């Protein structure tokens, strides 16, 4: 059986960098990389060939059916003609991971290939904006991953990384999350990742029970979508209420709201909050993670008619 790894993530997330990092862990002569032509700056074909890996590029114009057909064709050719032991696929950044998985679970691939790792690279520097902007593919890549690798975590600070981990956990509470700086990742660690171990798990060595909460489901998440616009006073009043603990112990919260013509992002941590203006389009979604949430009361608080709607 051909063992298949898929490295997905949006343009600029660092898919190619990661593949380069992981490559030495694959047995060289039996590994084929299928790369999308319009992915990141392509892996240098010469280097790859010199080191014995083979690379197949697929061209893409559209994400939908035509792309799928090209992909099916390319993969089928690789499996039949090159007979590799491993295939690393770097699909286009807007591909739907679950669609690729579905294709691999059908013939002709079902009997010849086995999915090994579905690694999704999450771009820490752009995650928040991307989550707002993008449609289902973005969530799909994260929720169907077997490994979530945060890239550029070292550039954004610990609290942002924590926010991102909480956020991806809403979509995927099983995959280990790796936030380690890739430059500092050893071959052994990269190998363990490829082999499906979780020694790099971001949450593994965290002594605080809070961090493991989402995975063990002892904590709860509350998410709600707000009307198109709310008043800033109403938002502040609600966030103050959250601090008081009348709805349960809110540990962290994040939201994107529109107040009239202004867009804001708020962050709620350790019983304090801050509201910052942002210059991108916001969806009106907010989310809290905490202990002993009173769902009914929370819902009433955030969906009350008196939202001070200003338009």
């Amino acid at each position, binding site marked *: 059986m051909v063992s298949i790894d898929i490295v997905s993530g*949006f343009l600029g997330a660092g898919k190619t960098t990661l593949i380069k990092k992981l490559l030495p862990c694959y047995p060289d002569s039996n590994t084929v990389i299928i790369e999308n032509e319009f992915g990141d700056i392509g892996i240098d074909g010469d280097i790859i060939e010199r080191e014995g890996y083979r690379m197949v590029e697929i061209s893409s114009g559209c*994400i*939908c*059916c*035509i792309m*799928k057909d090209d992909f099916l064709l390319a993969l089928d050719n690789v499996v039949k003609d090159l007979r590799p032991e491993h295939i690393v696929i770097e699909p286009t950044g*807007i591909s739907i991971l679950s669609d690729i998985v579905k294709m691999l679970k059908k013939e002709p691939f079902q009997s010849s290939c086995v999915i090994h790792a579905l690694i999704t690279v999450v771009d820490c520097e752009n995650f928040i904006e991307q989550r*707002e902007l993008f449609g*289902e593919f973005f969530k799909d890549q994260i929720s169907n991953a077997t490994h979530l690798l945060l890239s550029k975590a070292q550039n954004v600070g610990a609290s942002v990384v924590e926010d991102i981990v909480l956020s991806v956990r809403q979509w995927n509470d099983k995959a280990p999350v790796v936030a380690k700086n890739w430059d500092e990742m050893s071959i052994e660690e990269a190998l363990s990742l490829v082999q499906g171990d979780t020694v790099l798990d971001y949450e593994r060595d965290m002594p605080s029970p809070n961090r493991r909460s989402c995975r063990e489901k002892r904590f709860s998440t509350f998410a709600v979508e707000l009307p198109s616009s709310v008043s800033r006073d109403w938002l502040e009043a609600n966030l103050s209420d959250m601090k008081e603990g009348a709805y349960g112990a809110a540990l962290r919260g994040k939201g994107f709201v529109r107040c009239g013509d202004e867009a804001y992002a708020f962050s709620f941590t350790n019983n304090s909050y801050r509201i910052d203006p942002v210059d991108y*389009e916001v969806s009106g979604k907010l989310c809290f993670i905490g202990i002993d949430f009173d769902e009914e009361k929370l819902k009433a608080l955030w969906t009350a008619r008196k939202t001070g709607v200003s338009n």
Partner: protein
Amino acid sequence: MTPKERRRAIAENRPYDRIPHGFALGYAASRVTGIKVSDFHRDAKKQVEATVAAYRTYGLDGVGVRIDIEEVLGATFNYPDYREPYISATLNLNEDALDTLTIDDPKKHPKLAIFWRVLDGLFEAVGDESYVSVSFRGPFSGSAALFGTENFLRAVIRKPEFVHRAIEKVLEAELTFVEALAGYGVGFSNSDPIASGTVISPQQYRKFAKPYQTRLFDAETRVSGRKPQYHVCGDTTRILRDMVETGAGAVSVDNLMDLELVADLVGSDAVVVGNVDPSGSMLLGTPDVVRQDLRNCLKKGSKAKGGYRAAFGCGLPIDTPPENLIALFDAFQEYGRYPFDPERL
């Protein structure tokens, strides 16, 4: 009956042979006359022959020509001999690129020369009996294709104001093109694959795709006298109502959408079009799978209050086996015969 006779009979409440459909072969028409896909693009005469041959062989309800406006605007397209064309070089996202996004005189533009020859050829061959449609990408997806989809989406976050100006320029170029078609009597059809809910959120759709598409449809409706068709790939559940509000007369959906839900959401405001699976059924399935898919579509689609037209859920792969096409059109002849009764299926 020819497509025009069929429509006339329906309009005048007279009997007809079968309900009309919207199946189109696209590049797969090249297989009907056995030409290379690259020749289909390079040689107007061969494209007309292949398109008309597909129309006659399978009894289609119209002929059409598809145009990559992005190529006219400066993107480089690659036409492999036996595969779908793809974009091999896109424009840089900078101010200079914006200045080049114009079509001064569509009739004289060298990159549109083949288009006009194909259009004239189609009218000459079947214009008296069949409808002729012109299809191209809408302003949002056209812009994404021009600049490279992922780069473009990244710019939507980083430089939204620039992105708006880019889409505006693409729209203006498309409007110039549409105006040049006045008097031809063509129908219009736009696809908007990148506007899909799979790619961008509904909020972004309303901001970056819908307003421009609405203006394009306005012009197309005025120029052709008929409301255009609008296809958006992927999951469109959350933007279906917006798609209807663009002024499209027919909304065409991806095969992953449930037609019953689509019929429900669209109501009587537009014709529902779709959505036989071009890959799973047509390319990879058997004639039985194709017939089953078509039957399901007709059953669900016929619940649409504003009308329904069976069609593929997306572009038909070039390598679709002829036996599946034959099965599809034979079955349609049977299922869709007058008087059409969904209970019969």
